[in-house]
């Protein structure tokens, strides 16, 4: 076993130093009836060549994106990832480090987190961002719980256009905390019913672009929140903020998001990257870690985790959240991505996405689909088809097109609807091919 370096001589000497005869003697405190008497019933050990072969075979049982063209999004996107990202995050100094509790030997990581916080806050146009959360869904749920604490109100309102999985996670977190969740409906793909809200709500949670790709009216959300004194919490796809006015510009109190589009592979949905940014007045209430700049005794500038008294290892049950390990390596991946793209790159990715999306709408509607909603969209749209979207998706898959997400499972009456995502990676030829095949299967 290459991972365990002990030679027989090592073991002998170590046991002699300890003063016992065998390794078994070190386990005397475990009651005998709790000790395993036989080897575990699990597969036999594999050598490295066998492991590679075994895992390769399992991986090939999947239909990955080398075999189909991806128009599936719904929160996870097939975006371009520069080679630099993988090169940086596979470095052992980052990959095999622990949380930077000892800042003197963690300056590299701490600085990248500071840079990450800065770039996310800039993207969302917010005062500050934390060092990351688990994923977009839990980030939204944490924001809602935070709002109930700040506002001392036990109810939250969430739009029906927020990603269904995010709403499910929100429901779970709120159930555990005894917080009531009300859902706002939608008209033509945009949140409706703000007028019905009253001062019992701690926050209103909206996503833009929504689950359906539609661009929500954040000014209307802000004035609704002002009227009832609730916090405005927005989930926003980071790529969209490369070109659209970010939620901070509309006065959002908290902005959360899924950072996967910023240089993280789809990876069957994990690991992901939760983004969390807010106004500075809430900094002492936020979950997760924050890195700040300071100096050492000689006046040299350096970085350290700060405002630690919010955290559970110090505050225990009074902590602002139970999150400690977050998604540092994914945050680093996105920091490399954001640095590589820079000011012009993110704009280009966002703009290409808009162009490709508009083109896809044009050719897919010409091929027999219909736009379900009339609102403006970014990167994604709902295409209504003449028959079951699930069966059309299956037929297109046989033609090498992963067409999108059939929405029947998510909303009643949308059995014929397909949620189609078009990233900057899709070419005109791929979009044309999708349209041609759609036309073919629709007969």
């Amino acid at each position, binding site marked *: 076993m290459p991972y365990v370096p002990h030679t027989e001589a090592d073991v002998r000497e170590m046991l002699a130093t300890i003063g016992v005869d065998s390794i078994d003697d070190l386990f005397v405190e475990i009651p005998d009836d709790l000790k395993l008497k036989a080897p575990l019933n699990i597969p036999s050990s594999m050598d490295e060549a066998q492991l590679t072969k075994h895992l390769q075979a399992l991986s090939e*049982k999947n239909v990955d994106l080398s075999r189909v063209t991806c128009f599936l999004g719904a929160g996870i996107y097939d975006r371009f990832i520069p080679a630099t990202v993988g090169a940086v995050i596979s470095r052992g100094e980052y990959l095999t480090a622990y949380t930077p509790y000892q800042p003197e030997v963690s300056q590299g990581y701490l600085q990248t987190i500071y840079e990450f916080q800065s770039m996310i806050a800039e993207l969302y146009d917010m005062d500050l961002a934390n060092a990351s959360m688990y994923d977009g869904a839990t980030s939204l749920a944490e924001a809602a719980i935070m709002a109930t604490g700040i506002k001392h109100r036990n109810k939250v309102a969430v739009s029906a256009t927020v990603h269904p999985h995010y709403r499910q*996670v929100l429901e779970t977190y709120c159930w555990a*905390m005894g917080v009531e969740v009300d859902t706002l409906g939608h008209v033509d793909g945009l949140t409706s019913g703000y007028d019905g809200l009253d001062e019992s709500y701690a926050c209103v949670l909206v996503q833009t672009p929504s689950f359906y790709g539609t661009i929500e009216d954040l000014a209307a959300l802000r004035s609704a929140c002002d009227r009832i004194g609730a916090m405005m919490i927005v989930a926003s796809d980071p790529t969209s903020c490369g070109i659209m006015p970010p939620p901070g510009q509309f006065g959002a109190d908290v902005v959360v998001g899924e950072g996967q589009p910023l240089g993280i592979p789809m990876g*069957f949905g*994990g690991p992901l990257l939760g983004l969390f940014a807010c106004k500075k007045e809430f*900094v002492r209430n936020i979950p997760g870690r924050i890195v700040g700049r300071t100096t050492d005794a000689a006046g040299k500038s350096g970085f350290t985790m700060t405002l630690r008294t919010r955290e559970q290892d110090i505050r225990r049950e009074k902590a602002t959240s139970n999150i400690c390990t977050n998604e540092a390596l994914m945050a680093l991946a996105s920091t490399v991505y954001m640095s590589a793209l820079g000011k012009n790159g993110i704009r280009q990715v966002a703009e290409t996405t808009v162009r490709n999306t508009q083109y896809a709408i044009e050719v897919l509607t010409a091929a027999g689909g219909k736009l379900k909603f009339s609102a403006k969209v970014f990167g994604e749209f709902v295409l209504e088809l003449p028959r079951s979207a699930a069966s059309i998706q299956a037929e297109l898959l046989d033609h090498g097109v992963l067409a999108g997400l059939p929405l029947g499972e998510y909303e009643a009456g949308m059995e014929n609807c397909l949620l189609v995502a078009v990233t900057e990676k899709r070419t005109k030829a791929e979009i044309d091919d999708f349209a041609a095949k759609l036309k073919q299967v629709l007969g």
Partner: protein
Amino acid sequence: MQRQTKSVPVPQLIFERSRPGRIGCSLPKADTPEVDLSKAIGQTRDEVKWPEVSELEVMRHFVNLSHLNYGIETGFYPLGSCTMKYNPRINEVTASMSGFRNLHPLQPDHTAEGALEVLLSVYEILEEVTGFDDITMQPVAGAHGEMTCLMLIKAYHESRGEGAMRTLVLVPDSAHGTNPASAARCGYDVKTIPTDADGNTDLEALKAALNESVAAFMVTNPSTLGLFEPNIQEVCKLVHAVGGQVFCDGANMNAMVGTTRPGDHGFDCMHLNLHKTFSTPHGGGGPGCGAIGLKRHLEPFLPAPALKRVDGKPVLDRHRPLSIGRVSSFYGQFLMAVRALTYLLAYGKEQMSHISRYSVLNANYVQARLREVLPQAHNRPCMHECVLTAQQYKKNGVRALDISKRLIDYGFHPPTNYFPLIVPECLMIEPTETEAKETLDAFCDALIAICHEANTNPDLLHEAPTTQVVGRLDEAKAVKLLDVKWQHAPETPATV
């Protein structure tokens, strides 16, 4: 007066490297027709002030920063309670296979059979290793796993009509801070149970605290004192007798792998940190991977969707009427499951117990070698980590933290300090099974030398570290400045 630190200049921020017009990657070119943006999306924004740097500058920036960071691959990392073992490189190779990496979580189930098989294989191996009936990996970190377990317990009590009466979670005074925090996030009140003089759960105090308001007792076994709880079966019986559930904090599972199974101890559920015990890399603070194990009676409440084997094939069960619901976006940290499976299969049934046996050997060796200078908090064989006290140096003004910082100058990552909270001037050392005797010897030699310095020249410790890019940082100033975001010069730090 602080001595000179390492002569490495403080690195520039990536923003300071920026020059207008540069870019660090080659993006896909748009070949679809241009559009009128205002018609397509409405209003557009001002520029995003991200840095403009060339591709080489990107690499240099992050590679040079990596040199200011300590990882397991750079040296010994004996951080107690964190299980900083070698992260095998083959795991990175398998996790980057296209069939895993380029897979969408919402693509049709039948096109992701290999991925579901990976998850289910991990579940099945972990069920056998832990002795639980079911595993799920939807929780994405250890604390998330703890919280999910408490949610299962809450749903279980509610299903029996006891939700309203069970309002209390008991937590030992030696517990990780995430335990009480997770209980609070499930709406529970928290009561602390003391540890007795031998380092075990104080049974009398536990009995006194037990009544029908108790929802759960959260036990770390081995405890954070590095000691196996010999009364664990009795502890579980006592809690069950009042209708409570017992949760096992699995942060210390490394001591038990292949030797004993928490599922056999009487626990109802547990969380595992795959990034500790099963070697998925810590990544500098995540991604974690918080699998949980549970007994049959908690199975109906599993997060949805649940993954089951039906007729030999993995199947996602989405119809879960009693489920607590979803706890994360998709199926958890899938690419971490690929790494964990690779690791579990590398050990296999023949060698799985090496993990516990050699990690316990290493910890006891360190404890024995240091007993003259840093005595153990409790005079018992330790498990996978030893908890030592530096109390005797306090008279020289030397604290545990000073010893830790001095270790940095000797080239080692410090152990965990001041935890568990109940041991004065605590150093918690977890060597793991992947460290060689000569590494442990070098580390112990360094600590012995440092303890000698603590008596002869304590200022060496107070001024440490002096070998890094910065010395000890002013944390109070960090809080006061709250400089958490780069701003264009001239800079006026935000005040809160």
